[in-house]
């Protein structure tokens, strides 16, 4: 299990940030991703594997509105 934006989410072997975003259907483009508090820049998302038990924040920045 990992935590995504304070809620539990099932972990799987090899789960990358890109895959997580897809599975959560986070289609908004202006996202900031932090794993255990550390920012991971966008170009690294496809390669970055999320460890089991990680605390992940996928912060949607405001736009629109």
């Amino acid at each position, binding site marked *: 299990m990992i935590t995504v934006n*304070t809620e539990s989410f099932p972990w799987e072997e090899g789960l990358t940030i890109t895959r997580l975003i897809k599975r959560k259907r986070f289609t908004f*483009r202006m996202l*900031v991703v932090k794993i255990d508090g550390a*920012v991971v820049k966008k170009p690294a998302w496809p390669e970055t594997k999320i460890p089991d038990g990680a605390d992940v924040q996928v*912060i949607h920045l405001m736009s*629109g509105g």
Partner: protein
Amino acid sequence: MIRTKVAYDLQAIKAKHELLAEYKYDIKPIDRGYNNRTLHIDVGSRAITEKPVSGEMKRLFTGGKGFGMRLLWDATRPQTKWNDPENEIVFAFGPICGITQYAGTGKTLVVTISPATDIPIDSNVGGYFGPYFKFAGFDALELQGISDREVIIYFDGDKGVIKIFSAPDEEINSHLLAEQLIEMYAKDEQEKKSFCTVSAGEGSDHAYMGCLNFSFYDRRRQLARLKQAGRGGIGSVFRKKKIKAMVIKYTGTTPNNNNVADIETIKAVGAKYHREMYENDDAQCDMRHTGTPHLMEIMCDYDLLPTKNFQFGGDAEQIGKVDSHIWREMFTQGIPDGCWYGCSMACAKVIDNYMLRTGPYKGHVVSVDGPEYETAGASTNMNIYDPHFMAEMNFYCDTYGVDTISFGTTMAFVMECYEAGILNLEITGGYDLSFGRGEESMEMLHQIARGEGFGNLVGKGIRWLKKYFVEHYGADPQFLEDIGMEGKGLECSQYVSKESLAQQGGYFIANKGPQHDEAWLIFMDMVNKQIPTFEDKANALYYFPLWRTWFGLQGLCKLPWNDVEPTNNAETDEPAKVPEHVENYRQLYNAVTGQNISADDIISQSERVFNFQRIFAIRRGYGTREHDRCPYRGMGPVTETEYLSRAERYDKQLVEILGVNPEGKSTAEKMKLLRDYREGQYQKLLDAVYARRGWSRNAVPTVEHLKSIGMDLPELLEVVKANL
């Protein structure tokens, strides 16, 4: 296709003008963003006067909406109604308005006593009128009185001459009127860019949701483009005053009309921003190609795109018909669509070569200014996922001077009433107003413009209709209170707020009513879960409304703040605030005015005006806690269908939040439990927000708070003391 050109005998039309008043004023240079005078026109008596702007006025109210609110307060009594001669429309611009080196710097703030809400409304609009009027010599314009005949007010900003003419023969609808007037007054094609018009339309003659159109001349398209001051019925007030249009001529635009204190800083900050825009926009919001409708599928994916009167947050089956790809194709590309010089965000997109399918201009080929996201969302709210309907509705709403948001939200309400059996064919004049009925909806809009039929009632808006449906058709008042998505009398803009308590507050505590420009917190609250406690939400509902108010004090557009972001924004402490852009704005303000304010001072400037606006509503008998009411549709499922459509989510919440096992409970029982909980949460939110803002439990700013922000003015203390 070639755009349809309507032929007129402009000489004959002009020959009918009778000069009713003329006024000459001294042209003086702007001093660091301020003219230090405003203009007052009484269209009833035709008196035209100038007023000085005091240092105190600038210190307390800054400019733009602040000036507008102050002038409107002074001009009206607590009893003044929207259609009284003493009601004013105030146009104000702000110290930064008109600089050409940064994006989004040409906005006008318009305020009046609203026919929809009976309290002050403010609307922020693009086009060239604001900068031109400011360069012509004034920080604000008050229009008061009611004329006994149709008039045009003409401002020659080059010569310092103002004229009021009778104008019996011009068109009323804006797309034709703007073209007529620019054609009439500009000596050649080259000069047309120096003219700007403000007008409404036939819809504004009858509806309480009238809007104003501000033009700017698009040289590439050879077309007067239109931007709208949409909310709260300002167009209705304009037409009540029998003003057909205002026209301004100003030819002297330079890179420094504002005579700023430090032009080099402004250039440097602007250049940095433009670079960021060019480098980041394509990968971020794609504003330059798709404009605000880039949000369509995103809002649908997050269950936020209103569908069937805010019952649902989108329709996955239909969204492909109106998503960003469609708009990218329908909008003309390759033309920079900024609504004032220097706007590199350039989001004012256009559908060119659109052939109208309905109404008085059926068969005409036109250019449609838009749609913006809000207009497209107004259409999905009626369950009409059809880009051609959206274009058609957008065009006619604009030219008729009808607010697309209020029209869409009101029609969505009417459609739900129709499907619930409150309305029928007999009542609607034979029109099936079920959800999804595009042709019939267009007919309602045309009826608003003609002032006839059931459409004429629709134009009065949801609050008026609720009462009418109860009195005339025996509707259940509680049901209408639950589904009518209005607050303070203003129809809600197009985001579903059910799963974000903070956004419920953002909408329904907002001073003017539920318009997203005061606060948009849905992602922070519902998706990111960054503001879980009442204290967190109250802090967000303190900071962001004040931050956003500041754009209106300055004559700025909000979009360039956070619809593109610096690449390293993610690494900052508070990415939601876009700290680098806050610093840009701080530097711009200081460079224009020569002052040295901090980021906190920005919030203080707003806080003074924000509290003033709240007290203005209280002075008029509104503005207290009961008026911050949120209809239950804004909080949760009103109908069983709605509950069942998201049953998994709601059942889970009953278990996880309320500790209730939903097994064996009827849907009605579960809905009641959820409703009691959510309504209780909203009341707790109100308490938290009021406390954070320095207001009483009844939403009245306290004396101590007013003292602490320097707004303990005798006239404000008198109002609050009577209500504390």
